[in-house]
């Protein structure tokens, strides 16, 4: 042990960090034994959680309970990253930042879409007055008309940039809301009577979790939270739509099908499938009626087998699906359904 008062916390954090790094290597295709362990994913999540526990212990040691536990590693609802992260702006033709099209995805908790500040921009932190001033100037600049051959692309870039500023602002509001919850949970813990008997750090932690969740739950059901949460999600979607538009432009240039085209084909195909099923149903009904008419003409009452309605059961199913009862696919006792 060194003289440093909290060296044990440092050692714990270092261990957790090392664990996280080891786990991250599982996702590096170049590393030996990448993703070989079936428990790699759980280890990632476990170490992320334990890292938060380490942060909490450190806060405790400083007499300040709980450090930003709600942001889930800086990832707000629906996985938007911190806007201060990577850049959404690449040269035309670049893959969307943060995407790893042929590699492995980011570890849990990491930003799936690397939205960040514009390249080279010395941008203040969202949520500060400086950012607001910067955003005002940036918005004005981004409202200037575009000209020339690439005017449409320029306008798209401007719209993307404005959407990013909106998103950054909503992100800051959401973070402020979570910080408020965190502060209230901490205050509630401090306001609780101190137990007369010494307690374990873990039991204090569990007490704090209960208070944190209680305060979070209360806030999360408020009108303000609902409004801020939805505004953030909507802002991210507006940003993502514009980003997709840029990607589509590039895909078109590369002679590849775009998502819009694929979606359009899918929609038409699904409509045709519905129509086809409807027609199969009609054919089945006509067949049933024909059989009835034939039976009546022959002077017999229409036959009706027990348990079978006039409309042939599973007529549609037979025409669209695969009945596999006859050649049932037996599944091994521990088989996995997919």
């Amino acid at each position, binding site marked *: 042990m060194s003289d440093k008062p909290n060296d044990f916390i440092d*050692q714990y954090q270092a261990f957790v960090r090392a664990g996280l790094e080891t786990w991250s290597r599982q996702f590096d295709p170049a590393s030996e034994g990448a993703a070989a362990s079936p428990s790699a994913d759980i280890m990632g999540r476990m170490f992320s959680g334990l890292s938060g526990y380490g942060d909490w212990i450190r806060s405790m040691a400083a007499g300040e309970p709980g450090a930003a536990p709600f942001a889930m590693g800086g990832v707000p*609802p629906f*996985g938007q990253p911190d806007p201060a992260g990577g850049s959404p702006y690449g040269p035309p033709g670049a893959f969307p930042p943060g995407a790893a099209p042929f590699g492995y995805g980011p570890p849990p908790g990491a930003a799936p879409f690397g939205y960040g500040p514009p390249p080279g921009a010395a941008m203040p932190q969202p949520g500060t007055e400086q950012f607001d001033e910067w955003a005002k100037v940036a918005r004005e600049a981004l409202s200037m008309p575009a000209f020339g051959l690439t005017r449409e692309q320029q306008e798209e870039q401007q719209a993307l940039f404005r959407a990013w500023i909106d998103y950054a602002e909503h992100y800051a509001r959401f973070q402020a809301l979570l910080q408020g919850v965190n502060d209230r949970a901490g205050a509630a813990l401090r306001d609780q009577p101190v137990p007369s008997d010494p307690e374990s750090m873990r039991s204090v932690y569990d007490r704090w*979790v209960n208070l944190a969740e209680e305060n979070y739950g209360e806030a999360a059901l408020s009108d303000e939270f*609902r409004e801020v949460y939805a505004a953030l999600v909507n802002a991210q979607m507006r940003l993502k739509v514009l980003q997709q538009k840029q990607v589509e432009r590039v895909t078109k240039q590369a002679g590849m099908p775009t998502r819009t085209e694929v979606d359009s084909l899918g929609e038409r195909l699904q409509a045709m499938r519905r129509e086809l099923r409807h027609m199969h149903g009609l054919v089945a009904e006509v067949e049933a009626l024909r059989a009835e008419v034939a039976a009546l003409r022959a002077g017999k009452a229409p036959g009706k087998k027990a*348990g079978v309605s006039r409309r042939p059961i599973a007529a549609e199913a037979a025409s669209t699906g*695969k009945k596999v009862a006859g050649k049932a696919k037996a599944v091994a006792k521990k088989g996995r359904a997919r």
Partner: protein
Amino acid sequence: MNGNPFSFEPESARAEVEAFRRKLEAGMETLKHLGPIELGTTPREAVYSEDKLTLWYFKGTKKPTAKTPLLICYALVNTPWMVDLQEDRSMVRNLLAQGEDVYLIDWGYPDGADRWLTLEDYIDGYLDRCIDVIRKRHAIESLNLLGICQGGVFSLCYAALHPEKVRNLVTMVTPVDFHTPDNMLSHWARNIDIDLFVDTYGNVPADVMNFAYLTLKPVRLNQQKYVGLVDILDNPKEVENFLRMEKWIFDSPDQAGEAFREFARDFFQKNQLIKGEAHIGGKAIDLKKITHPVLNIYAEQDHLVPPAASTPMGDVIGSKDYTALAFKGGHIGIYVSGRAQAQVPPAIHGWLASR
């Protein structure tokens, strides 16, 4: 830790953290030597498949005593294997042991080809065809339908649309009123631009859904749970159980875009089911048409479908034979807890057997 209001001693805290670290370090060995995790252990055979869907028929160790088969209709979110998680935590296995004849719909993992599937395609299409297949296999007019969570909503809609094909209806943790004050998911969804959301995502990624669920209790589900895991790291069996649940939580399907749009907009945002305003494929869903015997099982500590979201069912359906059963537990515990194994399948079987 000067001046902090907690009654632990610095030395004991140091010892506690070091002990925790040692336990974690030792536990790594357990994690390294675990094999693949499998869900769904009860022997079964596929009797029908269509697109991504599979209709499973379960094989018990004895012949079913129930005359009417029971079809389990699970939600589109997560896989249906929560009802057959492992040998000693399986609602399916216990229903078979009671004498039920059990089928299960596995909706599969939708991809881009399924992006335009609507609620009509799911309820009046897939579900209806599965029911027809079972009716034909057993030469019966109607079967017993057990809907779970969103699958319960599907089952209610189905029973209202095709009352003649359902004999008895069992719903588990099924919401009918989406606007109760304690419904966090619905509260959050209320102001989201669902059209923009679906138009942007297409199919809604499973990770996005999981993220939303985790943020219902962020500290407990992202941090405390894993701190607790360290306590059991020296017990491979316990760790396997933990991992099975973990796999079920995170190995979840994307949501077909159009079906998600309709469900989020019409049910979560507009609360149309309880208002009698819901439509599936243009057909009105009149819950008063549900005159079948109905057993509604809800969980008292359910943070996803609060009891208040489910209990109004008896008032809005047309059935005169309605039974509500409260289970002491949560949304997941109702399938996997020891108490659930002992209470829920016998309650379902007993209720069905008496009708």
